[in-house]
């Protein structure tokens, strides 16, 4: 079942078409990867889809509803969560608290109730904490629960961000280079984690440079170059696409490929 549908999305920065008419759709339980050379517009595409940038053109449909103009914090409510390429961790909070914030949507207490610490707040805190602990265990970070996030190593924080995003109970999860800067063991863990998430019925949209990982876990791959779609399809098919090969071989190749597909 299609959960996320992106149609002809585009944005221009100072005359440069960073994302130029990209369309794709993702189904529940699917791992959909977006690859491409540096500067291809992958992260910009994420920022467009998650409402951080306002799209110059095109449409985003989430679970059948047009969410093109919906503010980022409301997109979560509709089932979209993400991680960030440059970590956006709450460094002053503990790992557990980071994940607890991820559960913010499920928290039903008002600011006033929080201020007065009504019994409902204590109950809420217990629920949120239990859920956050569960997620930390799931990503293998339970032993770091009370450590201040700022004191944790990079690879660990990547998984912490995933746990935080999962806390929002998303239907679509966008992961921006989750394995970047991770060692082999950590990459392996992330690989398993993504597989699990998809099996739980979440649509995973993945930006990743680690081709081994991408080819292994993706159901479909979208290749971007210069903000445009270069190719799309199952990993095997994309890997043998001459335009993609050209793009990865260098600038010259990319231009050639562009012409071929333009």
């Amino acid at each position: 079942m299609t959960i996320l549908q992106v149609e002809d999305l585009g944005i221009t920065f100072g005359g440069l078409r960073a994302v130029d008419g990209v369309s794709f759709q993702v189904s529940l339980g699917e791992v959909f990867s977006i690859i491409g050379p540096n500067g291809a517009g992958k992260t910009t595409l994420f920022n467009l889809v998650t409402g951080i940038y306002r799209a110059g053109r095109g449409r985003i449909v989430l679970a059948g509803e047009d969410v093109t103009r919906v503010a980022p914090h409301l997109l979560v409510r509709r089932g979209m969560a993400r991680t960030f390429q440059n970590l956006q961790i709450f460094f002053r909070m503990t790992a557990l608290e980071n994940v607890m914030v991820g559960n913010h949507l499920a928290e039903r207490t008002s600011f006033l109730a929080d201020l007065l610490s009504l019994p409902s707040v204590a109950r809420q805190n217990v629920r949120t904490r239990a859920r956050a602990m569960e997620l930390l265990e799931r990503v293998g970070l339970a032993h770091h629960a009370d450590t201040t996030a700022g004191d944790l190593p990079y690879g660990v924080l990547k998984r912490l961000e995933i746990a935080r995003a999962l806390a929002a109970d998303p239907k679509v999860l966008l992961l921006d280079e989750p394995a970047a800067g991770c060692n082999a063991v950590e990459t392996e863990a992330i690989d398993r984690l993504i597989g699990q998430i998809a099996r739980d019925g979440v649509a995973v949209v993945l930006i990743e440079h680690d081709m081994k990982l991408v080819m292994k876990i993706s159901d479909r791959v979208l290749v971007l170059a210069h903000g445009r779609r270069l190719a799309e399809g199952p990993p095997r098919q994309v890997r043998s696409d001459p335009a993609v090969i050209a793009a990865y071989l260098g600038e010259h190749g990319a231009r050639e490929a562009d012409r071929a597909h333009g």
Partner: protein
Amino acid sequence: MLKRVLSSRLAVLVLLAAIIAVVPVLAPSSFYLRVAALVWIFALAALGLTILTGYAGQVSLGHAGFLGIGAYAVAVGPAKLGLDPLLSLLLGAVLCGLVAYAVGRPILRLKGYYLAIATLGFGLIVALVLTSESAVTGGPDGMQVPRMVLFGWRVSGVSTWYWITGGALLVGALLALNIQASPSGRALRALHDSEVAAAGVGVDVAKKKLAAFVLSAVFAGVAGSLLALMNGFITPDAAGFMHSIELVAMVIIGGLGSVVGAVVGAAFLVVLPQALTVLQEYEQAVLGLLIMVFMILLPAGIVPSLRRLLLERAA
């Protein structure tokens, strides 16, 4: 274990309550009670900034403006409108909240130093209005604040105000601690570190910032009301730029985001000038020097730095 105790809500409240209870026993004269009462009042205002700046990371250089609004509410309400002082205090708090809401909505979109200058401008304008509208406020020479009468009891005397302000501080500390450990508090602390990520997990960043701003304004307003009622007299100076800086200095020196830190910071800046009077004309230079020395040696603020030290020792 130690960490748990140090960060527990109850421990902080018991500690504060104990200090408030012990000071009168040690104080040789009611002058010391007055100084302590001033510490409680300014700590209450500083607690507002603990929420706004400490938790949510939003800087305000205009909070004395709210202090001034609260102070003049209990002066103007009874004197010019014939309102009950207690009612005036509550109305003052509401007014602070409303003003904060109206001002905060547009300016909280600004970030960092840009927000600082916008709030600074707000504080300046409040002080200017209080100074200029002499017909209502008595102008730069200030105005008398009628005594508060509660159910026929004329509230006066240093020790009475000591307990009232001490009680107010405890309530304020309780509220600030409540927020810290709640969903809203986590949201505020989250947006402090990354607004994008906070929005990314569903935090309505603008709304939460506004709530923190309004709450901190109410804290400052109530503190201003208490100050005016205790002194029985108020001047527009209370809303002045230097007092805004002083409030921010209290939370930074005490330790940003720490409830105990706000009280320690307030004590630092209220008690120190009293202690430094022995230095006469050297007072200002030494005060400035001490602020610098403390910030260089304890860059995270007194309370968090000492806490860390204590934990390291224990570990």
